[in-house]
């Protein structure tokens, strides 16, 4: 029996992002579509950044998770358009990022406040942080450095 797509979305929501494991690939907004094409399950995945080295690991993790649930005919499709945007990050994902110490993306172009002490006195250190999707910021109150998930 074929599981319905809602069930599959829930399974995929348990697949962690390889670089930020507190959020799932569904939270990240990179799973664009899940459809049955006859007996084949097609999952459309969009890359975050063109050169993101995690892309192939994400594909592998998605496929492994679905096989572990007993699915055998899986087709992963790379979907470029429309390009990924941080607007697709789920509210649950944003809250988890913050609890993990990464300031979630904000349309203002910078973090609302320090994810550790909530002070609004923060400054940018560098537009690029530990991964392409993050910038490096610093809190002027607690003096801790932190990552900010860039808005793109």
């Amino acid at each position, binding site marked *: 029996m074929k599981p319905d797509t809602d069930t599959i979305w829930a399974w995929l929501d348990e697949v962690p992002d390889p670089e930020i494991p507190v959020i799932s690939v569904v939270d990240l907004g990179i799973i664009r579509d899940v459809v049955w094409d006859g007996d084949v399950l097609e999952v459309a995945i969009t*890359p975050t*950044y*063109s*050169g*993101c*080295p995690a892309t192939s690991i994400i594909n592998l993790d998605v496929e492994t998770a679905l096989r572990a649930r007993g699915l055998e005919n899986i087709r992963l499709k790379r979907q*470029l*358009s*429309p*390009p*990924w945007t941080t607007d697709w990050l789920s509210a649950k994902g944003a809250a988890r990022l913050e609890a993990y110490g990464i300031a979630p993306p904000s349309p203002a172009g910078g973090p609302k406040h320090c994810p550790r002490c909530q002070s609004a006195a923060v400054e940018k*250190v*560098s*537009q*690029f*942080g*530990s*991964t*392409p999707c993050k910038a*490096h910021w610093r809190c002027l109150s607690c003096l801790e450095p932190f990552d900010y998930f*860039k808005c*793109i």
Partner: protein
Amino acid sequence: MSAALFEMLLRLGDNTLVLGHRVSEWCGKAPVLEEDIALANTALDLIGQTQMWLGYAAEVEGKGRSADDLAMRRDVWDFRNILMLERPNLDFGHTMMRQFLFDAFHRAQLAALAQSSNPRVAEIAAKAVKEATYHLDRSAETVVALGDGTEVSHAKMQTALDLLWPYVGEMFESDDVDAQMAAEGIAPDPDGLRAAWEATVRDTLSEATLTVPQDNFAHKGGRTGARHTEHLGHMLTQMQWLQRAYPDATW
């Protein structure tokens, strides 16, 4: 296959490949850690864009080659990047000035390509223009900080600009390939991008207290493959070393 489309895709993919490789040469030895990370991430974006352009080029060619084959198994005369991007990095200031001059062009080019009549070109460009936009934010910011910085940093940035200026003209050169692509609505005529580029570049350079050279002489030949500088061959000996020493190696 469309020979002009293949040629255009090589020009796009070779620009990002060659610059991406050059920028990656800083990995592990940039002036400060933040710059090291920023340069490595920029290189990563450019190599990612290369995979998309050359991947599509290989499909258009239809001879069973892959993006990797195109990147790693062509020699100097088959590369179609502009000469400016194959120049050695020299110092950090020269690297960032080259990045800025290219980013300003690249963003304008990709924004126009995102409107392409060819859906594959449009979707790749729509993805890449987001990255080119923050590349430009950063390189412009750095050019201003160093140009309007200390006496030493100012002098180095002026030297870099003087060295690079004779290479910018090639970005706006047009030939039959460009004319065909423009006529089919696939790509903008490069010459049409010059005015917007000049405006961005002159504003930033003036803020950086740098003097734009008067001479508009342009070194050419990279994007047509007529002639490259001696630097590209040396770069390829590094970039393609593994594929040349161990053809068909997999791991």
